[in-house]
């Protein structure tokens, strides 16, 4: 390796030795990423034009038929509608709850660090475990209804999982329980970056606690909230595990909790229609991408010059 002074401005490009280093260091990661992330997504676009059972090379070219079927299938419409509800309800339910909890936990109090660990526990537990546990507890004769009866609220006991009017709310309850800790941790981290002098100055000026939070903490927490909302939207659009585990492949649509991803797996792989499944994947990808780009363009732009738009 040449021992050139590291600070010379390299206007004339870089030497071959450095090129080699760059290639050797970043090559494996790029290969893996392109091979197992980018390439499959592109192949989905290709397979989506075929009627194909997954054996041999696809031969039965059907053009846009798969897409026409998807866009006309009422089961897909329902799944899309559920995804929409989940996106909105996740933001509306988890956002305020998480801000409230973060404010609560941002107070100076004993045992703060242990509480922060505990609130994160549901987030760390596998979806399968969460799904198994909640579906046991929410059965008609399960623990939740039993507790309700024993504290005299028996009239509240319900068929939480099968009642189509209720199931989506049950799902939201479980989702909130599982993922609110992640939002709280992010918000707490954001709050810790707000200089303490600001709230002290506000207190000197006679602002109440709530005024301070409303006028200082919340606005300064904006960037963190917007990033969290982005992650939440993307997660909600691609929701699969919990729905599939709790409601299974057949019940989800009758209970009103199916999502685009469960539709994709049920109608694609489980039905053996790989061409169709790939077309659904493309639709899911396009919808997620449009929403992500719009969100980045109009909401995130000012916050993430560094984090998501390349180079700091």
């Amino acid at each position, binding site marked *: *390796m040449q021992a050139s002074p590291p600070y010379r401005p390299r206007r004339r490009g*870089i030497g071959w030795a*450095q090129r080699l280093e760059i290639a050797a*260091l970043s090559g*494996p*990661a*790029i290969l*893996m*990423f392109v091979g*197992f*992330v980018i390439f*499959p997504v592109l*192949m*989905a676009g290709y397979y989506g034009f075929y009627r194909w059972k*997954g054996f041999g090379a696809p031969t039965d070219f059907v053009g846009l038929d798969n897409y026409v079927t998807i866009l006309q299938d009422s089961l897909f419409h329902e799944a899309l509608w559920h995804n929409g509800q989940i996106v909105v309800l996740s933001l509306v339910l988890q956002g305020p709850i998480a801000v409230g909890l973060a404010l*609560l936990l941002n*107070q100076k*109090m004993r045992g703060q660090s242990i509480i*922060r660990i505990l*609130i994160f*526990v*549901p987030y*760390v*537990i*596998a*979806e*399968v*475990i969460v799904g*198994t*546990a*909640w579906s*046991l507890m929410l059965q008609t*004769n*399960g*623990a*939740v*209804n*039993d507790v309700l009866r024993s504290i005299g609220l028996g009239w509240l006991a319900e068929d939480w999982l099968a009642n189509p009017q209720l199931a989506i709310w049950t799902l939201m309850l479980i989702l909130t329980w599982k993922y609110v800790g992640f939002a709280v*941790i*992010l918000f707490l*981290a*954001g709050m*810790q970056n707000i200089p303490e002098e600001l709230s002290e100055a506000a*207190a000197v000026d006679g602002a109440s*606690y709530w005024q301070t939070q409303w006028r200082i903490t919340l606005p300064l927490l904006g960037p963190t909230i917007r*990033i969290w909302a982005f992650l939440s939207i*993307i*997660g909600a659009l691609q929701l*699969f595990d919990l729905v599939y*585990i709790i409601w299974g492949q057949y019940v989800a649509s009758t209970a009103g909790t199916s999502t685009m991803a469960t539709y994709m797996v049920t109608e694609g792989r489980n039905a053996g229609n*790989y061409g169709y499944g*790939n077309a659904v*994947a493309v639709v899911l*990808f396009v919808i*997620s991408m449009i929403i*992500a780009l719009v969100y980045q363009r109009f909401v995130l732009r000012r916050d993430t010059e560094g*984090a*998501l738009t*390349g*180079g700091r």
Partner: protein
Amino acid sequence: MARPTPSRQGNPIVYVGALMLIGLMLGPVIYIIIGGFRTNSQITTDPAALPDPWVFGNYTDVLTSDVFWRQVGNSTIAALATTIGVVVLGVMASYVLARYKFRGRGAMYALFAAGLMFPATVAITPLYILVKNLGLVNTLPGVILPQIAFGLPTTIIILVPFLQAIPKEIEEAAAIDRCSRLGFFWRMVLPLSVPGLITTGILAFIGSWNSYLLPLFILNDQDGFTLPLGVQAFASQYSVDTAKVLAFTSLSMIPALVFFSLFERRIVGGLTGAVKG
């Protein structure tokens, strides 16, 4: 610092709120663990009560079964291999992104950052076909390789700021001591970035340990199941034996919980760094 507002310390309402919160968050987890110490008839007659008497048979049954340990083994191999792959490839690529100046650097960063938007869900169907064509269905590498690829974006997003924060002066000093850039990477960057590597490693480990969709597609053979698939298979196979299902479930969540509580500070710190941007 000494501000006489009631919110400063010891406000009882805050403690009550915090306690209720902990109860809500831990309730279901405690239900799983305690439920494993009961019998099925106890659970049927009184779904939400304490064990009376405590039975240990469910846990010992699970702990002495081959199936459980085989799945623990599969999950451990998959999680360790994924973690090593993600961290090694991730730190190499992050070093390039953080400390080299070259054309295409922005594009490379954008490529990985875009991956952050798309969890494996979107690509699962074609990914399955790819893995099948590679002849890796029903093998752990068929799960591990895609998991490494999908773990790279998070790892790189967290590590790049970390590596950028290493002072330029250290690099200059290394250059004066005739240390090549690769030598600098090996002798200075790696040791200095251990905290960041731990953060990303733990995230990758927990992600793999909990991963469901990818193994569901790739592993169809009971012998190859990882724990999440095992939990579900167990739950449907022994659907009448609720107590044993609860015991199986609670044992399978221990490793992720232990790892998380050991490194909680680092994980939260890493996430914070990534979000600050």
